């Protein structure tokens, strides 16, 4: 119970930060919507942890719900790293094009 309350407090902290950032126009609308949904889902997962335990057991996984959430989180992180890497490659390509254009103009 204490852990759940603690996790929810952390989520509330991130949500307030998110709202502040949006107010200051530091993030785009789409990005703020994405993170808002993300934290709400995280809060729901924390609140309904017992239900997730049951669902996970019904699906045949041996671990508890919180373990399952952790696996999902790691998978999502890997996906984000991969996406970020691809984005970086694209940015590198743009830098090369700009460098080339400058070299050819002189």
């Amino acid at each position, binding site marked *: 119970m204490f852990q759940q309350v603690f996790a929810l407090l952390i989520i509330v902290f991130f949500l307030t930060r998110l709202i502040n950032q949006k107010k200051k126009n530091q993030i785009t609308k789409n990005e703020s919507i994405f993170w808002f949904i993300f934290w709400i889902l995280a809060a729901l997962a924390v609140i309904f942890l017992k239900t997730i335990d049951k669902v996970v057991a019904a699906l045949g996984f041996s671990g508890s719900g919180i373990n399952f959430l952790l696996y999902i989180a790691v998978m999502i992180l890997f996906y984000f790293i991969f996406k970020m890497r691809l984005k970086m490659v694209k940015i590198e*390509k743009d830098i090369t094009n700009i*460098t080339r254009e400058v070299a050819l103009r002189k």
Partner: protein
Amino acid sequence: MKVFCVIPAYNEARSIVSVVGRVKPLVDEVIVVDDHSSDKTLELAQKTGAIVLHHIINRGQGAALQTGNDYALRHGADIIVHFDADGQFLAEEIKDIVQPIKNNQADIVFGSRFLGKKSNLPKFKKNIIMPLAKLINKVFFNINLSDPQNGFRAMSALVASEIRIENDGMAHCNEILIKSFKNKYRIQEVPITVIYHEFGQKFSGGIRIIKDLIYKKLTK
């Protein structure tokens, strides 16, 4: 036929003047692409009378070659030669590498260290790295050349305009090969000599090439 020689240079202050000096009398135009060297490569190259293009950020050999290609194409090159700035190739062999294109027997010509002429290749490179690179090219790209990792090559203007080098790093060697085979150009290999001052591409470099090729494929 106008022959342009593109020499990508990164920290080649020791050799750039002599390399340009040897190449210049043999071609119509020499283009040195300084890839943001931290030594005096840029200043020294400018004194040679060659056309010098300067990358304001270091982007890698592949990027420098494409910059040189772009310049050559915009200024009426018929044949573009790629030549290293470290003095490991022999300038007098440029005529051998452009000849098949001049004779209309090939669209792109690759130099090869394994076709008769003597090159003092380090043993590890000759017996381990090169066969491995050849095997990867054969298995994954169906490319069968005696020396797939050679930077000495010549191409017609048409080929240069159709092949855009997208790999900024060392993977451009494979990229040019892959695109040449894919576009079904007439390909020839000519024997060349390589004088090794240093080891050149290391094993880790080979791994990086494979990684770069995969990422390039994914970001298409």
